[in-house]
């Protein structure tokens, strides 16, 4: 049930999908893994859209080198925990939504408990080991995983629906070696917004998701490429090879 103020706040999007749709967004519980570049963009747009409950997990501290892209964190936040900085801004953006923060590392030993009973996982991580842990949890809990990643002016996104689409390991069987990639803020903005769009569409049951489609954004040429995907029957996470 929406308050009068909520109806006014979301009026311009209620005209797209109705108060019932807005109510669905209000009921949604979204787990966002990471409060950095992607996490800033994803959480901002889910907050203003009225997603009712966000749980964000990150262990990091705001540093000067984050500020070219992690738009939830400002100069005055340097030295603070990223989650505290994020929570403060998101609550001020929209006091109607619940923002829960957990300052912890995401890895295969922690992720199941961290996700808990949330409806879906949004990948805002910066390494594939953590992404694979998110993938396993999504498969175990049978909840969607909205993948995103960036490199310079390039980025990618896909939506993983356990049992239906290729999982992250089907698509990327091997992790690249750890490194510090270049990133410009506009790319985390674009890819984060694509991920947030996927979340909203999924909650509302509208549009066409990036199921078995890897969207590859080329910001240098302002071009989108798409790679068609398929499940790997022998996948070690979701197929015959699963342990």
């Amino acid at each position: 049930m929406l308050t009068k103020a909520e109806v006014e706040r979301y009026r311009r999007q209620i005209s797209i999908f109705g108060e019932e749709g807005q109510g669905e967004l209000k009921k949604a519980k979204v787990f966002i893994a990471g409060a950095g570049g992607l996490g800033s963009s994803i959480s901002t747009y889910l907050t203003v859209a009225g997603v009712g409950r966000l749980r964000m997990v990150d262990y990091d501290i705001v540093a000067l080198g984050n500020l070219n892209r992690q738009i939830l964190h400002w100069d005055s936040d340097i030295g603070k925990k990223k989650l505290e900085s994020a929570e403060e801004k998101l609550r001020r953006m929209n006091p109607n939504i619940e923002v829960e923060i957990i300052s912890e590392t995401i890895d295969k030993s922690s992720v199941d408990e961290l996700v808990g009973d949330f409806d879906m996982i949004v990948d805002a991580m910066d390494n594939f080991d953590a992404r694979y842990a998110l993938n396993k949890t999504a498969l175990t809990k049978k909840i969607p995983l909205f993948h995103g990643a960036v490199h310079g002016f390039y980025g990618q996104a896909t939506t993983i629906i356990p049992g239906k689409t290729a999982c992250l390991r089907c698509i990327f069987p091997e992790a690249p070696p750890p490194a510090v990639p270049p990133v410009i803020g506009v790319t985390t903005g674009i890819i984060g917004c694509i991920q947030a769009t996927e979340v909203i569409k999924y909650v509302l049951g509208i549009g066409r998701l990036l199921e078995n489609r890897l969207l590859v954004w080329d910001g240098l040429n302002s071009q989108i490429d798409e790679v068609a995907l398929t499940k790997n029957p022998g996948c070690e996470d979701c197929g015959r090879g699963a342990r």
Partner: protein
Amino acid sequence: MRIKVKFLATFKEVFGGEEKEIEVAAGGSNILDLLNLLCDSPQRRQRIFEHSDKPRTYLQIFKNRRPIQSLDGIHTKLEEGDVIVVVPPVFGG
């Protein structure tokens, strides 16, 4: 036989961004042969190959929607009409 190849993301800067139709030898050509054919400059070679004859194993090379690691890796045979997409690792966030 003719196959289609496309390079994405940062690979476009070195290989070009348009899908190309390539002629490869029928009966026996594989992904490694294709990469050797396409890496016709030191710059291109450096982007794909870790050592002189071994492509970086974490490259995402898709043959008809399947990553080659789920097929026969770099020894995956090519067939007429195959669509090969090569994507560099993108993992930042």
